[in-house]
């Protein structure tokens, strides 16, 4: 990474926990960015060697190929239940799930809501790109009204399919949730904010406070039929207005009298 015969100085390197191999993700996909944020925060918090990663079903099932941490594959939507079992067995370990919007907000809705409500000491990384990616671009519970997918080719219709589910708002309303935030990966500024939120969510577990949840608005250029730049623009112009960014719950801020 550092050329020997010039005056360049390495100031930004890949975290060691990231495997040295190219990802299978499409150009412009944000899973790579999200993975890297997880890797950076795990490294900075000194958690890498104590981490149990609960993978889920979707494009990100292969997260275990890119992060060198212990991992188990959960059935579709069940990662919060698997994480509950793993954490109850090993309270001394750091347990996180990494789930997409089909996995978490559709088939796994019961598991995420109850794990949060119980205040399980686990952390959840929720990547919301408004579409089922791996299966080829079908409608997700977070698909925006009017958005065309392979199973709503005319665009999602509020009358027939309902409105997109706002997960962070739901999770923030549950008693066991210590921290819930929605961030976005569409810009450098937002990515830096995302990392801060992720660290906060992880700290809710390491400090034994409660359940931590971060929703990351993310791009799926392939299934949005867009180039990467247009996909980032879509996040800013269409997703963020419907899915407002921000910290929806932080019990430590409330305790400090801050909000």
């Amino acid at each position, binding site marked *: 990474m550092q050329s020997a015969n010039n005056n360049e100085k390495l100031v930004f390197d890949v975290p060691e926990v990231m495997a040295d191999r190219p990802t299978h993700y499409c150009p412009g996909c944000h899973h790579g960015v999200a993975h890297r944020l997880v890797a950076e925060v795990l490294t900075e918090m000194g958690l890498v060697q104590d981490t149990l990663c609960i993978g889920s079903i979707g494009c990100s099932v292969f997260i275990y190929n890119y992060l060198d941490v212990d991992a188990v594959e959960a059935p579709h939507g069940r990662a919060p239940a698997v994480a509950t079992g793993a954490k109850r067995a090993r309270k001394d370990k*750091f347990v996180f799930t990494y789930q997409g919007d089909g996995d978490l907000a559709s088939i796994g809705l019961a598991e995420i809501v109850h794990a949060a409500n119980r205040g399980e000491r686990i952390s959840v990384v929720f990547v919301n790109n408004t579409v089922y990616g791996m299966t080829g671009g079908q409608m997700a519970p977070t698909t925006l009204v009017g958005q065309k997918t392979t199973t709503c080719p005319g665009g999602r219709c509020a009358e027939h399919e309902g409105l997109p589910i706002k997960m962070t708002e739901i999770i923030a309303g549950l008693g066991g949730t210590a921290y819930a935030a929605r961030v976005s990966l569409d810009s450098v500024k937002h990515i830096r904010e995302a990392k801060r939120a992720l660290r906060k969510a992880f700290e809710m577990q390491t400090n034994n406070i409660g359940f931590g949840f971060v929703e990351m608005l993310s791009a799926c250029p392939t299934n949005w039929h867009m180039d990467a730049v247009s996909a980032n623009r879509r996040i800013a112009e269409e997703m963020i207005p419907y899915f407002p960014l921000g910290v929806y719950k932080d019990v430590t801020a409330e305790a400090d009298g801050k909000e």
Partner: protein
Amino acid sequence: MSAKPSRIFIKGNEAIARGALAAGCTCYFGYPITPQNDIPEFMSTAIIEAGGEFVQAESEVAAANMLLGAAAAGHRALTTSSSPGVSLMQEAISYMAGSELPGVIVNMNRGGPGLGDIGSSQGDYFQSTRGGGHGDYRTLVLAPGTCQEGYDMMIEAFDLSFKYRNPVLMLGDAIVGQMKEPVTPWSPEKIENYGAADWCLSGAAGRGPRLLKSLFLDDGALAGQNRHLQQKYEAMKVEARAEVYECDDAELVVVAYGSIGRIVKSSVRRLRAEGRKVGLVRPLTLYPFPDAPLRALAEKGKRFLTIEQNCGQMVEDVRLSVRGLADSDFHGHMPGNLPGSDDFVEAIVARLGR
């Protein structure tokens, strides 16, 4: 075996829960369903007092996946349910089999299909012994007929589960769960986890990361995994066990398992007192199925009658066991009716008298 304490008078469901604790179970996950509610109710305090974890899950789907998570962490974990709930667990059981994770699932079989009733049934034999969920896999299946067997078999279930890195089912029923009997509690001297520390997730400190999964996309990888699993299931066959009762001079061998096996034993005992030459084979493992003793009896020219509280499920395994040598008749006691020993005497005599 450590020193035996005196006997206690408890329900089969409690015997199963106490057996699990004696087996070193540290995590219990469950969801209420009749007729097994005594198990989570007992566990909700007992496992906590033993320093373990209890979670009342939001569903049987979640309970079985919590089992998967605790198993991935190398712990002895248990979930219990009854038929409709066990249907919901099949997804996780398939993933556990595919990922080679140990865990014990108790099914106190009730009547079906659908909501059925809350009484005794053996209608889940196929579901238990044929895999139950998707894919080519098998689970070891133990079938207690008494409260003591419920206790003892829990200890065996956890050992088998870790020995083979495979889910183990206990198939009881409403009779075994709800009746009360004297049980002698005991504890194994040592809990053997068969090298679980070498595969379980514990954080990649001082070693490479570990991965537990059932997804095999590379060319030939899934075929290899399935071959490996089939070899394991073949190796499990040494675990087949059955009680063979009064079969030496028997003309007719009745095959029955679980609480029905026990009731049939009463019928056989009564007919023996009348001088009738009838015996009983009571499978204690339903998978692997104890085909060897049945085949040995078939070679001696015995006739067979399979009695179940269902519409004919285990009879297929009996026929497979004796194929080419003999056949088995079938008498089904319909789920929804509680059987007594009188219910089977007539059916046995009808076959004996032919």
